[in-house]
């Protein structure tokens, strides 16, 4: 039986558009833009200057502190500028701009093969840190930080997240089908760091081909197993996965490591494999272009820093009636006003919608009818309706008492709300306020004692 969690919703998975399209390697022609804040944590520090020559796989910005990540050039060419450019998050950020010479000259040693079994734990960790790997499922948290918990002997499970529960996206599915050994070897490399751990590769049941390929790849390895998950959004949420694997609930504000888990997206694990075994830092990854607005939906191996417009053009462009372009899936993705932004490490899809359901929803909005669907759908067990009332009133204490800070912004409540209340959009604005207020309150309490 497959694992099913509490709550959640079942939007149309919409995977048919691109699930059977193999990866096509996309070599960009135009200008490349590398934002320095592609990860959670401190922005990277540039190590190149204007007019410097760069090669494929060359370090162009280094991690500034522990929670930060290196950035590599994905093309060869010349540094054109280091200045502020618009990014997919719709805020300008400091970027390194490189003119692409179209030659793709690699740096020395790129692609050199190493057997991970000969490496020590410290060497593997160094390699992961060197490669600038961050969580590729969308969060962008530096992976070398995740792989360095306080007590490595407490880690019992390495979870490969292949749930891919966001509608439309298929690049994880394709990865597991086309290169299952990248994922499985990635898990094996991480397992080498944790002596007491077992590997679990979790996949939603609607990807039978991927499950078959991975099962074949792990055959005979008793340290790694495959976990089938029911098809339900947000199955790939970290807390749901930890619960699926361990049977334990992850506490509010806790990290998976506190329950002995390390959860990594399958593309993150593939990148670990490439860094450790093929001496290749993170500059290329899988990407899906899909949605009703895409002329030719498909999966691509894209170079980080390519502009969305160029990827889109290579994918056949978008239909004229396209109303919305999203970086990511339709449940949690970011809408971009135009495609003139660079792709960053954590981007995994461009989703083009011909119908703006949010716009339609605004037209049919009514007062809340207190139907309770939001509560039933919340995978965190929260009461979005009550949180909404608190947020509308600006009642920070009530919002915190309702555990509003535990909201993961998955969007289930908003998807399911018949009154079309903008629940998650409101929480997104209110949560930072509540967090700041909570911190100040806790600090004041500490000071008072």
């Amino acid at each position, binding site marked *: 039986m497959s694992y099913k969690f509490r709550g959640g919703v079942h939007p149309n998975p919409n995977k048919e558009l691109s699930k059977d399209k193999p990866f096509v390697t996309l070599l960009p022609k135009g200008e490349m833009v590398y934002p320095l804040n592609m990860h959670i944590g401190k922005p990277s520090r540039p190590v190149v200057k204007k007019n410097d020559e760069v090669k494929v796989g060359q370090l162009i910005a280094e991690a500034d502190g522990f929670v930060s990540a290196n950035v590599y050039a994905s093309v060869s060419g010349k540094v054109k500028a280091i200045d502020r450019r618009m990014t997919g998050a719709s805020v300008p950020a400091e970027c390194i701009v490189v003119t692409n010479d179209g030659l793709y000259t690699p740096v020395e040693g790129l692609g050199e093969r190493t057997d991970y079994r000969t490496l020590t734990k410290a060497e593997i960790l160094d390699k992961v840190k060197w490669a600038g790997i961050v969580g590729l499922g969308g969060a962008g948290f530096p992976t070398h930080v995740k792989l360095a918990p306080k007590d490595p002997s407490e880690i019992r499970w390495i979870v490969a997240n292949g749930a891919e529960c966001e509608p439309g996206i298929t690049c994880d599915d394709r990865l597991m089908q086309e290169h299952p050994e990248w994922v499985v070897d990635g898990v094996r490399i991480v397992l080498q760091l944790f002596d007491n751990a077992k590997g679990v590769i979790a996949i939603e049941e609607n990807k039978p081909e991927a499950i078959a390929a991975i099962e074949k790849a792990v055959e005979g390895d008793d340290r790694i197993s495959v976990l089938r998950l029911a098809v339900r959004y947000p199955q790939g949420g970290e807390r749901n996965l930890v619960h*699926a694997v361990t*049977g334990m609930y992850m506490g509010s504000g806790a990290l998976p490591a506190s329950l002995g888990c390390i959860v990594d997206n399958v593309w993150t694990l593939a990148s670990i494999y490439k860094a450790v075994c093929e001496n290749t830092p993170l500059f290329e990854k899988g990407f899906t272009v899909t949605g009703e607005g895409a002329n030719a939906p498909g999966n691509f191996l894209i170079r980080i820093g390519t502009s969305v417009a160029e990827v889109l053009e290579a994918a056949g462009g978008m239909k004229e009636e396209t109303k919305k372009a999203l970086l990511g899936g339709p449940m949690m993705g*970011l809408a971009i006003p135009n*495609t003139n932004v660079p792709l960053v490490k954590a981007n995994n899809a461009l*989703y083009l919608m011909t119908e703006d359901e949010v716009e339609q929803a605004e037209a049919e909005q009514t*007062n809340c009818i*207190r139907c309770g669907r939001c509560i039933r759908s919340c995978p965190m067990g929260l009461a979005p309706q009550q949180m909404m009332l608190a947020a509308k009133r600006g009642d920070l204490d009530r919002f915190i008492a309702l555990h509003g800070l535990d909201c993961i912004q998955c969007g289930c409540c908003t*998807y*399911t709300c018949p009154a079309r209340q903008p629940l998650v959009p409101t929480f997104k604005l209110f949560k930072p306020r509540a967090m700041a207020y909570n911190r100040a309150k806790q600090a004041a309490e500490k000071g008072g004692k």
Partner: protein
Amino acid sequence: MSMLNVSSSPHLRSPHNTSREMYNVVLALLPATVFGVFHFGLHALLVILMSVVTACGTEYVFDYIARRPNTLWDLSAVVTGLLLALCLPPSVPLYIPFAGALFAILFTKCFFGGLGQNFMNPALAGRVFLLISFGTAMIDYSYDGVSGATPLATLNEGGTVSVLKMFLGFASGHIGVSVAALCVGAAYLIYTDTIKWKVPAATLVVFVIIMGIAGPGHFAPLYIGAELAGGGLILGAFFMATDPVTSPMTGLGQLIYGGLIGGLAALFRLKSGMADGMSYAIITANLIVPLLDKYIIEEPWGVGKPGQVLPSEEEMANKKPGIAIPRSALVLCLITAIAGVALGGVYSLTKDTIEANQMAANLAAYQAVVPGAENFAYDEAISASLEEAMAGDYYADGAYGKTRVNEVVAGTDASGNIVGYGLSVTSMEGFDGEITLALGIAADGTVNGISFTVINETAGMGMKADEPEWKAQFEGVKVDSFTLNKSGGSTADNEIDSVSGASITSGAVVNAVNTGLDFYHNYIQ
């Protein structure tokens, strides 16, 4: 390049909007509506139309005057109008649904801010408003052109009803009388996740437990079935109590709220003057909903659990992922258990007293007509045959007019021998209503005499029956039955002279006595 739309995620919406939700309720009510019209006729349809049109019209006009956007399209006014009509008697004059729907929409909904803002169910507020203001019309349940008691009223008065007819809806009652049709709709609502199923579940469980413990029929399936199928219980539990706006948001809150409705409904059925108190039960429970929502904050997933000790491999192997303990089920059981035990306790404490009181009222009468008896007690075999003999409305299907044998006690002397029987018999056909008398029959079948326990006949005429000389005619004779001699001057043992000018009273008394004798000959002797 043109700008694309930008908004905050999620970018998808389920096809379920508010009007779809309301549409589901209308759809679910359709079978009951169609049955009501088919069963009660055209006037029922007019009542429904009047109610729906008034509800919609009121909302439209209010929106217009208050300069609010028109909200008719969300269909909530249609639901209110339809629900109100379904809980009205089918024969009400048309001003009743008009006034009810107007009150429901204007006072409970519009004045409080429209959809989602009302503090009690508008349809029920409308119904209760009508019950208070137009009491007579609201309890006039005509069926087939005959005014009569609803099955529930009959049940409350100790009569018998056909549960199957009640379930299917072939009975008198409000327009939404067919429980079967309502159940079809309720199943649809639960299937489409339109209603919070915990509310009706808690309501019905608590209701059945309390009725079973404290009701006269206890857990007899037919009795429970009749109570469930009667009145507005099903309509209320599945369609009104579940009104999303006025029911709690949390699972625990829904159980408490549902349980409260079930408890109140049972209490009103058993102890109030009303045949059915479902409307009052629901609107009373509506009032505690804001408090339930304020104070019940469900524990989010995994709060308070971080840092717990990691289980061993063995424990993990035994652990099945993904199944949380259904805490709600435990809570439901707990609530019903507490309510059940409390009510059961009160009942068993008072049960003997109730029986003792009943007995005491008749004791004096029995003592007068069964001389030599020290104690009176029920005889189980006789009580069982009494129940059997009284299965119909009247004794022996009315062979003695509208008479009933109420109870039979056996009188014993100091050494425990049966010296005679006391029977309480009622005739409904006195000149001024019911006459109840105690009839004493000695162990050998001789009639000892009669003593009235209830008699309200005309003073100086019918009341002369209560004088010793007249009653003496029944004393010390051993006959199969008595006959009334209206002309007077009787000589035979079995002839009773009529009280002059009060032959109706006399006839009723003779019929009552003959009923008792017949019962004695057929079941005791």
